[in-house]
Structures are given as structure tokens and as C-alpha cells.
């Protein structure tokens, strides 16, 4: 694929002064939010419900447009190079974005075709993704017969079909059994080692601590703390990320 001049190999994600206010909401979802993620980083976004994680993820993945501010993926903006960017990012939504009545293979085939893959290339990518998520044996069975963990793995496998530059993962291990979670963690580590940039949101602090090379704790649409997990903890009195998280975001329940 011919890349535009703006392509920057090193700056995977750059977000500059993003603002987003939803209608009828008293506070902005994003308040002059800026972020820079280098190529190959495993970046974790942590925050309570309503902190703005999903909004950031949506804007960075090109699902919605900010009220103001700029987003660049490898130096390219969605306005001019939306199609190029979308062909090279992978999104794994929090919901199981799968056609339940289709088989795992048919789901993969459909999304591969939409990503512009066809013929031999599509077959190879589908086979690799299925193998990566260890779903080869059940690929020809309807998704509705899969366990929760298998569905999560298929959800991830589809996100990997185009061998993405940047992988957006929105709580990919919610409701998953220990074995599947362990497998997903292993796969994500492998992806990270292969140089894929990963933006990851989760509510599991130990998961973020274990996987991410850098994390940001955010609330009210702003980053409160950012850095490598060890670095964040070494400069504070907190024993783990959870303590730091509670300290920064408070103990008040967030139900929306």
C-alpha cells in the first residue's frame, strides 16, 4: 500500500487538545485531552465509569469526531486519510461484535473482505488469526455454540485480521474465564513483542500493571497521572495501582 507523505513511522497515536461535550451533559466528556503514544507501546487507559475512556477510544479509532482538537495515527489525520488509517487499525469492542448465527470462519471471512482482503491473502490472515486465538478446531461451528471465552477470543481474532499498526482494545477480558483470560494475556504480550501498538482500556488494575508499558489514569476527561506502572508506584506510597487509582479518583461510586 502506498502511504501518504504525512506517514510517520514512530508516532503511533497523537491526540492534541481534544474536547468533546455531549448534549445535555453538564461536564465535558473530554476536556483539552492530549496524548501521545509511540509505535510499539502497550498503553493502558484506566478510569472509573464516565471518566471518558470510551469517548477517547471512539475518537482515536475514528468512530466519532471531537468538537475540537486533532487526532493523528502514524502522522495521518482521519479527515484526509480516514480510509488508509481504518485499513490499518484494529478495533476490539467491549461488546461481542459477532454474528451469532454465522460460524467463526464466516465471521472472519466477512470482516476480512470488508478490510479489503481477498483470495490467498485473506485465507492466510484468517488462518493465522484463528491459530493465534486457538479457534481452528471450532472455526466452522456457529458462534452461538461458543463459550464466552471463545467468543472473546474470536472478537480479538477479528481485530487482528489486517495485522494492524494500532490495536484498540476496549475491556477485552470482561466476563472471561481464567484460562481464556490467561490466553488473551499471552497473545497480547506476543503482539506487543511483535511491535504492534496497543491502546487498552480495562477496569482490572493488576491486568494493566502486568501488561502495559505505560498507563494513564483519567477522570472527568483529563489525565490525572501518566507513566510506566512501576514508575508511577515508585514515586508514591501506594503498594499497587489499585491504591493509586482510588487515591486519584476517590472512593465515591460511579454508576454511569
Amino acid at each position, binding site marked *: 500500500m502506498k502511504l501518504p507523505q504525512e506517514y510517520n513511522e514512530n508516532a503511533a497515536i497523537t491526540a492534541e487538545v481534544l474536547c468533546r461535550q455531549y448534549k445535555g451533559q453538564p461536564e465535558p466528556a473530554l476536556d483539552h485531552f492530549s496524548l501521545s503514544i509511540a509505535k510499539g507501546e502497550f498503553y493502558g487507559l484506566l478510569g472509573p465509569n464516565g471518566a471518558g475512556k470510551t469517548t477517547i477510544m*471512539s475518537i482515536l*479509532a*475514528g*468512530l466519532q469526531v471531537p468538537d475540537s482538537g486533532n487526532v493523528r495515527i502514524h502522522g495521518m489525520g482521519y479527515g484526509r486519510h*480516514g*480510509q*488508509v488509517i*481504518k*485499513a490499518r*487499525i484494529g*478495533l476490539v*469492542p*467491549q*461488546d*461481542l*461484535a*459477532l*454474528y451469532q*448465527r*454465522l460460524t467463526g470462519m*464466516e465471521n472472519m471471512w*466477512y*470482516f476480512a*473482505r*470488508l*478490510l*479489503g482482503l*481477498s483470495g490467498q491473502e485473506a485465507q492466510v490472515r484468517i488462518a493465522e488469526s484463528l491459530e493465534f486465538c486457538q479457534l481452528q478446531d471450532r472455526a466452522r461451528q*456457529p458462534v452461538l455454540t461458543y463459550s464466552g471465552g471463545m467468543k472473546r477470543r474470536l472478537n480479538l481474532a*477479528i481485530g487482528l485480521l489486517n495485522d494492524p499498526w494500532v490495536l*484498540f482494545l476496549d475491556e477485552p477480558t470482561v466476563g472471561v474465564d481464567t484460562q481464556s483470560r490467561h490466553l488473551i494475556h499471552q497473545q497480547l504480550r506476543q503482539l506487543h513483542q511483535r511491535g504492534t501498538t496497543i491502546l487498552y482500556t480495562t477496569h482490572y488494575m493488576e491486568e494493566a500493571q502486568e501488561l502495559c508499558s505505560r498507563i494513564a489514569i483519567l477522570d472527568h476527561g483529563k489525565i490525572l497521572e501518566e507513566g510506566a506502572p512501576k514508575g508511577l508506584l515508585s514515586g508514591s506510597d501506594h503498594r499497587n495501582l489499585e491504591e493509586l487509582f482510588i487515591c486519584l479518583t476517590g472512593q465515591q461510586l460511579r454508576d454511569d
Partner: protein
Amino acid sequence: MQTILTTALKELLLLARDYAGLLVLFLMPVTLVVIITLVQENILQLSGQRPTEICVQDEDQGPFAQTMESYLETAQLQVRRWETSTEELRQAVTGGTCQAGLILGQDTSKQLQHQIGQQLVGESDVDSSISALSLDLFFDPATMVGFRAGIFARVQIAAQAAELEIKGARLGELLTEQAQGSAGVQAATPAGPNLREMFTSTLTSITERSSHSSQSTMAEVLNPVDRNVPAWALFGMFFTAIPIAGTILTERQTGIALRLTAMPVSPLGLLAGKMLAYLGVCTVQFLLIALVGMYLFPQLGLQAFSLPANPWNLLLPICTSSLAACGFGVWLGSICRSYEQASTLGATAVVAAAAMGGIMVPVYAMPPLMQQLSILSPLNWAITCFSDVLIRGNPLAATLNDQGRLLAFSLIMLILSWKRAYR
């Protein structure tokens, strides 16, 4: 194009796995057509009792035509004077612009008065030499049998009344002349039996003509099945809007829409793919219903559904009607937030559009306001296309206006859904 074809194939795969959905999709309209046709068989044949417009071409310009028109008005027929050619009147009736057309031929009054004069002079062999004055009456082939019979009878009565009035006036003149003692009148006064004969026999007759050149005789009256099959097939086809909306809502609710939005494809392509898949579904629906009409109806004591001389003429109306139905489904899916909303709004809208469009009751049998509103319903455009091809025997070109409307409706729906469907 790849997006459209891939999405269409995916939709068909999903449908093929949904056995209950398939059953509803295909069995529901077939059942509907069978039941409604059975129920309506007699009603449609007997209906047609409201004031109707009749287009009258007055080439006579004499007293008979004037009297006839006033009697037609008295008989609750709204007379619309037709000023252009007979051929255009024939086309207007064939096209459904007028339900009936009457031609009062040139010199009808003169000939009538001449024949009355002959009867009055009491020539014994007059009756045999006088040929009835034939008035041509045309009907829209899409009108019902009972409706035609009613109009025919009223036109016949109006003609007889007009003739009687002219006869009475002529007799009055004659008697006045006699009373004034004019010479030779006595001899010309009709005898008692002749006078009775003069008032009991009619000199005018109504001839029902085919308004279309392809129909040789109007004995080939409308087969209600030919109207019911496409009408209720269309009703069923428009109901596929609800499952189409359902697919969009499912994609939104399961997060698939998010995934699709993050991919390098246009929502237009995805929606067009859905429409392509359901275009196939609607076409199969129509074919299935047509087959039921052709082969099952005769077994149930109904008339068989008859295909036009060139059955391929049906293909384009089926496609454009299906696209309109699919477009509506896509729009429905884009504006509703839940399946409950889509099914309620979709069903209500389709029933209302069907009622308004003449699926349940022919448009000409509706009140004037509803007749005007009927042109807003896509189901009206669709059923008009099918009536043109199946009943009126019109060429496909005659349906292009309505097909254009259906296509435009489908495109507008698609464009309106473009930004909303996967938002």
C-alpha cells in the same frame, strides 16, 4: 461493489440460518394472499357504489348530448367533459385517469330525431329499417365487475331517459301542430300501437368497448385475483422492512456497528448490500405468491392468477417495488432504537400506506381526499405498476413514472439512513 456483494452474501447466510424468520418471511405473505383473496372474492365483485367520474366526449353537440349529460349528473355520475381526441380518452381510461369514458358520436341527436320522426309518421316497416344508435362506453380494466355493471346501468338509464325526453318533446310538437290544424298532420299521427311501440322500444344502445387494443372483448372482465395477488404480495414485501430494520438494530446493539464503522467501508455500501440481499428475498416472495395464485387458487375454487403476455414485464416492477420496501426497512432501522419500536412503527406505517395506496380498497372507491392522498403512498405507485402490466395490458413504458418514484423513494431512504444507521 465488493462491500455490497459481501454484505449481501452475509445477510443471505444469516437469513438461511434463521428458520423461524424464513417461515415468517415467506409463509406470512402467502397465507395473507390466500385468506384475503378468499375473503374478498365476492366483496370485490359486488362493490362500486359511490359517485364516480365519467369522462364524456361530446362529438354530438346536440340536444341529446346535453340531455344525456344532465341525466348522468342526476344518476350521481360526475361528468368530466373530454375535449381532446377519442384516442386520448381511450388512453386516459386505460391508464386509470378516468374509470369510465363515454363517446357521444357525431350527429347522434340528428340521427335520433330522424328516427323518431320516422316512427312518428307511422311507417309500418320503420322499426326494421332503424338501427339502434350505439354509444361507446369504455372502462378502466382495473375496475371491478360490480362497479362496471353499476355504471353501465346508469349510463343506459340516462340514455333512455334522454331519448324519451326527446321523443316526448317531438310528440308534443306534433300534437301542437295538430291542434293548430295544420294540413296533413292528421295522416302523420301515429296510431295507438305504434305510439306504444315508440315509447317502449329504444333507439339508443350502449356498447361496452375495450379501452385497450390488446383486449378484444370486455367479456374478459377483471379477475379479482389478478389484483389481489400483486396487491397482497406487495403488502408482504413491504413487511420485510421490519426484519431489515432488525438486522441494523442488532448490529447496533451488539457492537458490530462500531466494528463496521472502524473499517474502511462506507455505510452506504453496507446498507446497499442489505438491500440487495432483501431484494432477492422480496423477489422470491413475489414469485412464490404468484405460483400460489396460479396453481393453488384454482384448487380452492378461486380464479387462477394470470401472467401478462410477456411475464418478464413484471420483473422491473418487482425489483423497484422491492427496492422501495428495502429502502424503507433501512430507514426504519436507522431511526428506531429498539426492535419493538421498529416492529410497531414499521407495521403501522405499512398498513397505513397499504390502506392509503389502494391495496385494501381500490383508490377509485375511496373518498376524494383519500384519493388525493393515495398518490403519496409507495404502495400506490407499486400497485399501479402491477395493474398497468397485469390488468390494463399496458407496455412496460407506461409504468416508468411510477417505477421512477419507487426508485427515487428507495434512494432517498438510503441517503437519509446513511449517517444514522451505524451512528
